[in-house]
């Protein structure tokens, strides 16, 4: 099409859809994360169910127009309950040739492709190795291409505002956003007021962004290249107050909530690392909640300081990602030995070593379970959705405090950065998790255990008459003095193990989505919940005898796991690793669980899990329509 925008509106038809997945892609500097987030907020506020997946490069600002510099944001919004950001986009918005090249492979044939044709300059094309311009050479025939001169149109719209070329260019993402708002019949008011608020000190920038937004909208309205508009009606969500939330946000909020429910302050010791840093950024802002944050010199100091704080009676918390967790292991062993409450968050990313720091993976399960010297049992939890990150922050603390134990809380890059609507809980519905400090002198021994929980008493420095010494050397049972007695060591090792194992009686049983027995159980943990749930649902709809169970408690395992597993002919365990949970399950229950394992730095697609389940069912002689 020409760079002249047609001036007259053409009537378009309207179509109702159940679900739409859009991927915005552009240069890191193009503001794609912002565009995606704005659309997400809009869809959420409109009442759609949503799920998002931001995917940005490791480079801060890779060279403009380069492949490594491509930043993407995928969101799925729906009139029904959804659990993933969508396997593949229905619409790809590509702001430059690099974004096109990097993402086209995932756009199904027939998918809509909206590109900023102005960015397809010979220079940009060459940067990513396009010999000819794909917009003109017919190579995009299998897609539904909409080639829009976004930059030209946008700068025209902003003429006379006195902005520099660079400033104008930075607004073009709002043009794209406006166009998408038009396409999906969305109201822009919230975005407009967000812009006003965000740039309240620079009104000319605010004006530029608003004009860009409206220009995009109007472009849709006035051109005839789009013949249809789409409506995705609101979903039937459970009544309540909602907000949109990422896993990292929910984790941070959950920690603050836990602090209030435990009536103790959080001390957060941390060292920045992708993708965990945002938890630090967020908690650092909660000082009026009594949260103390400490950016340590390294991960060891971070966990050390958290242990020190717990020793003092605070809720010592630390977070990192795989390489940083590796550094914390020695100190985590100390926490196991001195039996202090501690929560360690592991926001997993693709490894080994530095790996792919911005990409997701479930590669640290065995590390957190076993990556310490000696027999060093602790609790491992894994929320399954961004919203659960809130609940499980409280659950982690409930267990840590009640049982005087370190708890590892497993998240991952996908969970951390992905967003979904969150029904904001009512505080009154949350139970207290407070535990008392030991103050009575009589009968006090540092390692005298509670009969039920096997927890030792928490006697804080400052408590008169309870002066005592703890440390990393083996402790005499009850008395707590240093002991080299062989039988004592054996007993204490078993006691530490028994304390953790006993927690199984204090956690909910594993739930099953689907028939209580049948052909196939798909067992997952962590952020793969949505993809597994959706795949299993589809197969249930297709008539398969299949169920889904998702472990939130990895250590100890719920008591009913063995019974659940044994009720199915096959057990399939999909993981974003080479089979870590599978190993645990096989060892414990001697069940020939099958793995589906991909480490691509990306969440599972529903379709691949569906296909794999069909394959496994076929080994039982079951064919699915």
């Amino acid at each position, binding site marked *: 099409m020409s760079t002249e925008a047609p001036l007259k509106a053409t009537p378009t038809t309207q179509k109702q859809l159940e679900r739409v997945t859009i991927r915005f892609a552009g240069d890191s500097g193009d503001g794609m994360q912002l565009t995606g987030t704005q659309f997400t907020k809009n869809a959420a506020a409109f009442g759609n169910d949503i799920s998002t997946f931001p995917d940005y490069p490791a480079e801060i600002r890779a060279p403009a127009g380069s492949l490594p510099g491509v930043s993407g944001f995928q969101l799925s919004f729906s009139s029904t309950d959804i659990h993933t950001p969508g396997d593949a986009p229905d619409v790809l918005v590509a702001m430059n040739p690099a974004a096109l090249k990097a993402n086209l492979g995932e756009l199904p044939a027939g998918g809509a492709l909206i590109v900023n044709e102005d960015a397809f300059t010979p220079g940009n094309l060459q940067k990513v190795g396009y010999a000819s311009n794909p917009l003109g050479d017919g190579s995009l025939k299998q897609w539904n291409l909409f080639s829009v001169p976004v930059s030209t149109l946008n700068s025209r719209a902003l003429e006379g505002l006195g902005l520099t070329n660079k400033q104008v260019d930075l607004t073009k993402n709002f043009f794209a956003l406006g166009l998408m708002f038009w396409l999906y019949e969305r109201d822009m008011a919230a975005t407009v007021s967000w812009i006003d608020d965000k740039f309240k000190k620079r009104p000319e920038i605010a004006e530029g962004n608003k004009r860009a937004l409206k220009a995009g909208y109007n472009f849709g309205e006035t051109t005839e290249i789009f013949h249809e508009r789409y409506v995705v009606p609101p979903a039937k969500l459970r009544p309540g107050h909602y907000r949109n939330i990422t896993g990292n946000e929910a984790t941070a909020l959950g920690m603050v909530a836990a602090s209030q429910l435990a009536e103790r302050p959080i001390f957060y010791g941390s060292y920045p690392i992708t993708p965990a840093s945002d938890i630090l950024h967020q908690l650092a802002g909660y000082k009026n909640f009594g949260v103390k944050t400490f950016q340590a010199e390294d991960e060891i100091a971070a966990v050390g300081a958290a242990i020190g704080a717990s020793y003092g009676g605070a809720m010592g918390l630390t977070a990192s990602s795989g390489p940083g967790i590796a550094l914390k292991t020695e100190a985590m062993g100390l926490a196991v030995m001195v039996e202090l409450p501690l929560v360690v968050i592991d926001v997993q990313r693709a490894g080994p070593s530095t790996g792919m720091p911005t990409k997701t993976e479930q590669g640290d399960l065995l590390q957190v379970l076993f990556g310490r010297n000696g027999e060093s049992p602790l609790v491992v939890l894994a929320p399954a959705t961004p919203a659960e990150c809130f609940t499980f922050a409280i659950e982690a603390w409930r267990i840590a405090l009640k049982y005087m134990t370190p708890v590892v809380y497993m998240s991952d890059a996908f969970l951390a950065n992905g967003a979904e609507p969150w029904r*904001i*809980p009512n*505080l009154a519905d949350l139970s207290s998790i407070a535990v008392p400090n030991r103050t009575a002198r009589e009968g006090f021994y540092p390692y005298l255990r509670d009969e039920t929980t096997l927890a030792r008493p928490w006697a804080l420095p400052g408590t008169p008459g309870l002066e005592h010494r703890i440390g990393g050397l083996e402790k005499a049972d009850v008395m707590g003095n240093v002991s080299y007695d062989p039988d004592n060591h054996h007993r204490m090792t078993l006691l530490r193990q028994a304390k953790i194992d006993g927690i199984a009686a204090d956690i909910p049983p594993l739930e099953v989505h689907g028939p209580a027995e049948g052909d196939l159980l798909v067992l997952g943990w962590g952020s793969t919940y949505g993809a597994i749930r959706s795949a299993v649902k589809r197969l249930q709809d297709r008539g398969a005898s299949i169920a889904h169970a998702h472990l939130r408690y990895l250590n100890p395992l719920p008591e009913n796991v063995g019974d659940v597993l044994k009720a199915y002919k096959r057990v399939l365990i999909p993981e974003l690793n080479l089979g870590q949970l599978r190993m645990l399950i096989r060892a414990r229950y001697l069940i020939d669980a099958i793995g589906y394992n991909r480490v691509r730095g990306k969440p599972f697609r529903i379709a691949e899990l569906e296909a794999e389940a069909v394959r496994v069912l076929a080994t039982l002689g079951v064919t699915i329509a």
Partner: protein
Amino acid sequence: MTDTITGADNGAGNGAAATLPELPVLTRKDFVSDQEVRWCPGCGDYSILAQTQKVMPDFGYPKENIVFISGIGCSGRLPYYMNTYGFHTIHGRAPAIATGLKAARPDLMVWVITGDGDALSIGGNHLIHSLRRNVDVRIIMFNNRIYGLTKGQASPTSELGKITKSSPYGTVDFPISPLAIALAAEATFIARSVDTFTEHMQATLNAAGNHHGSTFVEVLQNCNIFNDGAHREFTDREVREDRTVVLEHGKPMIFGKDRNKGIRLAGHQPEVVTIGENGITEADILVHDETDPLIAFMLAHIYWPEFPVPVGVLRRVSRPTHHQMLVDQLAQATATRGAGDLTKLLNSGETWKVE
């Protein structure tokens, strides 16, 4: 705001213990724990323990408000022998653990006990960072210039070329000055004493205990098993007055049995002079100034046999402490934003209602 913890059920607050009413008068014996002391007979650690127990009553803290945190090493056993709260942690990390404790519990008086290996080898980085942050913790480093507990390997303060179990051909690692490291790390209190200088050590520990901020005390300590006599040449009773110089703020650096030797600056370089010789008078002698970093640097680098070994407080300055700044930020945030309202926080950002 959920930020106050004390050991007591309904604690008396989190300021210095001095504000607590009617303290019982404590004595040295109150600080002796029921644990049998297990250092080698003759070890310098015994004296350090004794002096530490002796000065504890001076600070006006009830003993339950005092915590000793140690790393690993022979020195690391000290907390077991103190009838206070104690935490024998892991190798090199005591300063980090103490940082968290003090941040969480400003009401406690926190001491860190460490060795030359624990503090300067594996723990060097935590030491530096706790000092620069002015964490209000008193770090006492026992410097025996050897790894005691692991039976005699070289430490970062071992002399170049020293023959040890791990260096049968002599070390090839140039030693560092603990005091110079503390100074570069911006510690606000830096001092040195000697295991056998009992009174001097008490005075030094006393000064350390009364400082508010990052406090680093090097105690030269004899390991009679693996590095016997490491400091003997200048600490033996007969020579110590001639071979050490006791620092006192505002006083000239005079030393010697006859109190006729001193340190003077020639240009900006230190030299040892004799008062009464070559027309030198007391007025020529450098006056110690605990706030002068250049003097501290110079003192951190002079050593026997070229110079007398300085003992006492090299540096003492005042700067806001880490926990105080944290606490102030919390107070400020609460003052400007109100005490945290969780319901409001959860409902912040863009929310919507589903009916």
